[in-house]
């Protein structure tokens, strides 16, 4: 419906451009008189197109964003009082969801009562009205824009300047989207987290050692209260990240050193992109590899050593995550190692140092800040990595540092809490946002520190 309107609107814009151009040539007094125009005819066309399209598009976008919310609110408000009486906000949300599902022909979770059917009809009716109103309004705005542009067509009209300043505004808006994204992330997680911390105290979340978010639907079920002590998740995340770094940092760093200082050019030109393949592999593939190949292998290996390794051991997940991060560490290290000026190497060689002495005693100390920055970025990557742990790490929140046991991580819990059926306002769902906030703050802090260190390091040698 809305996409048809969008296509119609695009057609109108194209027509506005065409006739805007023609009109400009006409007001100038024919093709021979184009010189009397302030700008090229194209700009008059663009001017008309912008007037026709921009306000209408903005309206369309705005409307499309809010139609659903407004209609739902209206349906909710018009529900019979006896239906909504005594319902928690969460249950009400489910009811509205049902109504919406019924109206769009999806599967409904509860039985369809006449009231719900009526509400669904009401919903459909309102949606219909909204759509017609949208069409009328958008077309009217577009027409208004065109007529405005049409009337202002005159040789003196500074069409190019108008068009260019509009484009500049659009460019500014585009570059602010990055800020809006951050703002959106912050607002969405902070808002839901505040709701969460209203029902679960901060101290329990950050210092509690018991995590069991399953809140029973009935009061008599076991663990009805749910427990939201996130410490086991934090230790689990750290444990797996630590294992990953144990794999990634030595291998990544050493291969970067070897490839930039030792390897013949041919080897470097082949091995470097080959290693970087690892960076291009989707994380879900690593997850599959971890769960179906590495985890059984680690378990069997443990069994042959007489160890009882969990089939969802932190070791397997961390190991594969380490492989994933190798190219990340190695390309960042490669960058910083190459940024160490040749004069440092010359100074060392001129004293009679061997290559490895130069690398170990001059280049690495000189590149250390950059390497540390890179490793911090890698840690932030490991902490935020989701698919590998979702597929290969466990669900059980064990508080342990033993790498052969199963642990769970922050990201695993976010996915677990938010996939499947959800009530939007239950502490269980909100807990995911609190975890998301923690994750965001931690990774952001790491990134800012790391990027700062790396930037300072670069400036030092520029």
């Amino acid at each position: 419906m809305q996409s048809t309107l969008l296509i119609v609107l695009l057609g109108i814009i194209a027509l506005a451009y065409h006739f805007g151009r023609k009109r400009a040539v006409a007001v100038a007094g024919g093709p021979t008189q184009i010189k009397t125009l302030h700008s090229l005819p194209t700009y008059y066309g663009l001017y008309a197109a912008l007037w026709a399209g921009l306000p209408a598009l903005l309206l369309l976008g705005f409307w499309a964003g809010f139609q659903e919310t407004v209609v739902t609110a209206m349906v909710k408000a018009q529900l019979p009082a006896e239906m909504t009486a005594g319902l928690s906000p969460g249950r009400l949300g489910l009811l509205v969801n049902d109504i919406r599902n019924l109206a769009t022909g999806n599967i409904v979770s509860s039985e369809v009562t006449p009231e719900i059917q009526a509400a669904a009809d009401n919903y459909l009716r309102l949606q219909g009205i909204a759509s017609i109103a949208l069409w009328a309004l958008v077309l009217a705005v577009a027409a208004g824009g065109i007529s405005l542009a049409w009337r202002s067509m005159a040789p003196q009209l500074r069409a190019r300047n108008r068009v260019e300043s509009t484009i500049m505004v659009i460019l500014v808006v585009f570059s602010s989207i990055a800020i809006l994204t951050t703002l959106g992330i912050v607002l969405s997680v902070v808002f839901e987290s505040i709701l969460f911390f209203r029902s679960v105290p901060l101290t329990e979340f950050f210092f509690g050692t018991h995590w069991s978010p399953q809140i029973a639907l009935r009061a008599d079920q076991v663990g009805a209260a749910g427990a939201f002590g996130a410490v086991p998740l934090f230790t689990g995340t750290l444990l797996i990240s630590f294992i990953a770094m144990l794999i990634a940092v030595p291998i990544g760093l050493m291969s970067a050193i070897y490839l930039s200082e030792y390897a013949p050019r041919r080897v470097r030109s082949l091995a470097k992109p080959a290693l970087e393949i690892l960076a291009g592999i989707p994380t879900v593939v690593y997850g599959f590899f971890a769960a179906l190949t590495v985890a059984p292998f680690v378990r069997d290996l443990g069994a042959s050593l007489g160890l009882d390794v969990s089939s969802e051991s932190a070791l397997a997940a961390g190991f594969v995550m380490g492989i994933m991060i190798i190219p990340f560490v190695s390309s960042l290290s490669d960058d910083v190692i190459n940024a160490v000026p040749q004069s440092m190497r010359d100074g060392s060689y001129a004293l009679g140092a061997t290559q490895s002495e130069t690398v170990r005693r001059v280049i690495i100390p000189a590149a250390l800040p950059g390497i540390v920055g890179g490793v911090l970025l890698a840690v932030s990557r490991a902490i935020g990595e989701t698919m590998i742990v979702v597929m290969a790490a466990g669900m059980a929140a064990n508080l342990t540092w033993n790498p052969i046991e199963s642990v769970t991580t922050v990201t695993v819990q976010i996915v677990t809490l938010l996939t499947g059926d959800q009530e939007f306002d239950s502490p269980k769902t909100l807990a995911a946002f609190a975890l998301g906030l923690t994750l965001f703050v931690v990774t952001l802090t790491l990134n800012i520190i790391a990027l700062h260190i790396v930037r300072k390091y670069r400036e030092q040698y520029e």
Partner: protein
Amino acid sequence: MSTTAAEVGRATPTGAITAADLEKDRSFKGTIGDITSPNARMVCRDVNVYYGDKQAIKRVSLDIGKNEVVSMIGPSGCGKSTFLRCLNRMNDTIPGCRVTGLIALDGVDVYDKKLDVVPLRAQVGMVFQKPNPFPKSIYENVAYGPRIHGLTNNKTELDELVETSLRKAGLWEEVKDRLDQPGTGLSGGQQQRLCIARTIAVSPEVILMDEPCSALDPIATAKIEELIDELRENYSIAIVTHSMQQAARVSQRTAYFHLGDLVEVGETDQIFTNPQHKLTEDYITGRFG
């Protein structure tokens, strides 16, 4: 002259240079003046350097004597730095660089395949155009060489060696209270003297200096020049410089390079007062350069 550079190189497969070899090369005709030194430390004969296909140095022969400072002057791109870097094989790090001819240190062929560059560079130290202290403390900068080469047996000896080296470089008084601060925090002149101290700490026989003052102000330059004069007592020094005044001030012998040729060699006084070759004269009198 009938012997080519390659033949000279082949004539000394073991690396030992015989007196006859040296005698034969005395007749070299390309360069005006006496290329030899009575107390030669380093002997270079018919040295050619190629970067890929381009020949940067053409049949250069020159001796560097004991306790003398040899300065190399000439217009930019004349190959003097290239030649200097051949003397301790720093050109090895440049891909595509090829050296033929003979360069010997105390009678040992430097470019012998079996020769190890690590002890060579310990014997022939180098100071670069731009001061390049390591991003470590002043102490660690000087101690770096002795540490990697295992020159001292304990901390006391190392402390002593660092102090003597810094004293010889004339830096001790200025830095003795802040040895643990980064060497990169010093001024340009101090950094360069630190680099010299770093070189001295390894106890080399020969010190190569590649325009050591070009990045420094006049006061720092004067200090370094003074230092070079003092160092002459213990070391052989080859210095590349752009400043003719500097060459006149610090060196006993001067070599004038032009487009890869060594045009003229002689006592510094003689070169500056009575150059033999037209090119040298033009350069000295400032007609080009």
